[in-house]
């Protein structure tokens, strides 16, 4: 009985509907990741302009909010961390989309599994970011 279950578990295959749904999922996920890459590029350009224009832009904002002056280095570090994490999330989404799709198209089980692994890590990272976001929201409540 147990052997039968083990056997059927080993032979559980993606059916036609499941394959189609996964293909469509990966198509949209790929679109979202490509647009996110473009957004990331814009963020990096803005950040570089900010660094290049440095004192002029920073001076303008510190006149508006004098408290910012003390946090210049921390602000730049935060921007870098944000860009790094955002890049990592988008790369994971892109890997999920392309590897899963390629795995189905080329019947490559290894690629398919790699794609699912990237998807798992994408949701793991998203959950951690969501929890951090929730903590910041809670901070605003009090």
């Amino acid at each position, binding site marked *: 009985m147990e052997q039968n279950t083990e056997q*059927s*578990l*080993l*032979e*559980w*295959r*993606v*059916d*036609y*509907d*499941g*394959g*189609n*749904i*996964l293909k*469509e*999922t990966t198509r*949209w*996920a790929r*679109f*979202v990741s490509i*647009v*996110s890459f473009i957004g990331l590029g814009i963020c990096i350009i803005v950040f570089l302009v900010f660094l290049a224009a440095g004192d002029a832009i920073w001076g303008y904002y510190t006149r508006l909010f004098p408290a910012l002056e003390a946090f210049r280095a921390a602000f730049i570090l935060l921007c870098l961390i944000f860009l790094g994490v955002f890049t990592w999330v988008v790369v994971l989404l892109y890997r999920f989309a392309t590897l899963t799709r390629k*795995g*189905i*198209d*080329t*019947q490559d*089980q290894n690629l*398919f*599994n790699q794609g*699912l*692994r990237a*998807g*798992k890590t994408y*949701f*793991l990272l*998203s*959950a951690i970011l*969501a*929890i951090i*976001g*929730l903590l910041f*929201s*809670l901070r*605003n*409540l*009090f």
Partner: protein
Amino acid sequence: MEEQNQLDNFFNISLDSEARTHLKQMTQWARICAIVAFIGYAVSLAVAIFGTRQISDAESSGFSFGIYLRTGSIIGVLITITVGGILNYFLYRFSVDAAKGLESMDTVKLNEGLGGLRTYFKIVGILTIIILGFVALAIIFVMLSAGFSSR
């Protein structure tokens, strides 16, 4: 012929133990994402209605439009909750249905779950297109206003 090949392709991909483990963990983290998002929406609504920090910050800076700020904030949060609620409902459906399908080896249930994930990414994609449209409009507006101001 090509369709037949595609059919064959699907049948050659199996949900082996590694794939099942990854999918299972994906559903667990997706569930956490969705639940945290729902809690976050409730907190945001509470902050918008009862929160005093932003309003008092604005008023201490010399602005006296607290009531407008609060109303605007509540409307913004309600829109966010509606869109985000729908989005995360599908993510939650994916996490629950796919996990059930994996546990009971029920292909139909698993496909229902994957359908939820497909809808989730579809909505994210459509929202991305809308945001891109707004960004394009903003860029055009900035370029036009820069052009007018240089005359």
